């Protein structure tokens, strides 16, 4: 058998170190694409819009009775987080980022540069997924943290110190950040798969959005087949869902987090399977 220059990469060593290097290299190439480009204007808007609203709220002086109590502010944040951030901002942001990881390269006819590299297709999927994940975390976890801090800024430095250093502020902040992270992990995997199976991801994404939106009206066992159910279970402040909601026991974090991550891995494997069958037929796209 003829050996090639690159064969020595795996000679006598574990392939994992090569796969890790390759994953990091793919992430390196993808990073620039993940943060720059006109396509990302909508993502920047989704991430920065709530921050901008809260900055404006700080800049407009309010009377104490208009400001409300910190508890009310926490409730407002919980509502905004679970309705706008999770169901809209992160959802559409992840859709834009993850469905385009492969589709954009097919449209730009550059995917063959990766497909012609001595890289396992599974490694390619993982590298691209992580690059999308890093971008979505920077956008949306950053936005969540900024919003949570900005909600409490009008109550002054003394309150901020007490709330974050001695109260539940830091714990709530970390919980919200973790829920946003989970949202990016879960929606990211789902949209990566959708982007690979559908030429136009709008239709399946619309179906998914509808499913996630009416989730609280569905029977308990169907509620558990959704991303948002698990994310809401983890939120520190539960929201009233209205008279039509079917109340389902929240899934414990010890079950929901590993289960969620397990499902995410399965979805990423399904994406890898699709990429392993991928053919370059740019003309047909």
């Amino acid at each position, binding site marked *: 058998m*003829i050996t090639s220059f690159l064969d020595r990469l795996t000679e006598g060593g574990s392939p994992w170190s090569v796969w890790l290097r390759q994953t990091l*290299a*793919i992430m390196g190439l993808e990073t620039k694409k993940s943060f720059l480009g006109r396509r990302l204007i909508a993502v920047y808007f989704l991430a920065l819009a709530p921050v901008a609203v809260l900055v404006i709220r700080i800049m407009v002086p309010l009377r104490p009775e208009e400001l409300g109590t910190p508890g009310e502010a926490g409730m407002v944040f919980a509502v905004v987080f679970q309705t706008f951030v999770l169901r809209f901002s992160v959802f559409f942001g992840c859709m834009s980022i993850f469905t385009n990881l492969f589709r954009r390269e097919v449209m730009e006819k550059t995917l063959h*540069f990766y*497909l012609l590299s*001595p*890289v396992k297709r599974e490694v390619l999927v993982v590298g691209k997924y992580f690059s999308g994940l890093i971008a979505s975390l920077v956008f949306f976890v950053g936005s969540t943290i900024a919003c949570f801090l900005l909600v409490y800024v009008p109550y002054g430095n003394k309150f901020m110190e007490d709330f974050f250093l001695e109260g539940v502020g830091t714990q709530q902040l970390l919980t919200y950040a973790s829920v946003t992270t989970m949202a990016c992990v879960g929606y990211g995997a789902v949209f990566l798969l959708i982007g690979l199976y559908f030429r136009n991801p709008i239709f399946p994404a619309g179906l998914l959005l509808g499913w996630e939106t009416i989730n609280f009206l569905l029977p308990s066992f169907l509620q558990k087949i959704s991303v948002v159910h698990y994310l809401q279970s983890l939120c520190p402040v539960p929201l009233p869902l209205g008279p039509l909601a079917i109340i389902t026991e929240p899934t414990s974090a010890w079950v929901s987090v590993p289960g969620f991550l397990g499902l995410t891995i399965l979805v990423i494997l399904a994406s890898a399977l699709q990429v392993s069958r991928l053919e*370059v037929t740019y003309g047909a796209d």
Partner: protein
Amino acid sequence: MTDQDKIVVDNVSKFYGEVLGVNRVCLSIPPGITSLVGPNGAGKTTLLNLICGLLRPTKGKISVLGQTVNEPDLLYRKLGYCSQFDAFPRGLTGLELIYGYLKVYGLSDREAHQMAWSALETVNLTDAANRRVHAYSKGMRQRVKLAQAISHRPQVLILDEPLNGLDPMARAEVIALFQRLAADGAHVLISSHILHEVDMISDRVILINNGYVVAEGNIRGVRDEMDEHPMQIMVRCDRPAAVAAKAFEQDHAVEVKMHEDGQGLMIRTRSADQFYLMLNRIVLDCNLNVEAVAPADDDVYSVYQYLIGTDGGRL
């Protein structure tokens, strides 16, 4: 030579739905320069993409130096492909493009930088290494694609229309590079429509039309097997009439055309070997003064015209 040293295409067909890409292709390609020739839409790019694993055959099997094309992590260690796609990832310079993908191959920073620079040197593109690829001319883009294909020093180099867009100087340099790689034992498989260059550089040709391989092998060998098209031989000598007279005494001569200046003739013969023997005898017996003898239609262009013709489409 075993299959471990060849590109083997075993009864491969590819259909795009109802549309035929290639059909029942069987090839065994040894090291050296092999050219794939055929009209537009003949199936050249489909065949190259199948060999590179970018497409999957509907039927049949392909192996490259014993390696199945279904394992890209192993296949592309040995294979470099310069595709016809003229698109590049946005925002990258020539150096970043090659360096970035060499990193994806698993090389260290230092190795990737060294090899990227070396590949750019090979194609004479170091002056533009730090310019964005999108600002390159067509010829420079062609060269950076070539640099990317050879950057990891593959044993098999597959090139889809690599001479397109190159100026004559760059073309000569690139051809010299192919010849160097082939001399070092590499497989160089080229799809091209520039027939005189194909003829000049190829050890073998594969003629493809409408998805079928119509001929393959050494071009002279292919020509020799085309009995239905008598070989044309040009002879420049002082007494062409004597040669013509002797030629018509033989069964193999089909047609003779005298040159207008009376200093040569063009003969069509079914057996070039018999004609050359006869010519030797005439030279000895009649003291014929021969200035030149050359086959006139055993090049790729002629074979192409005979087998595919103008009906095959535009080159």
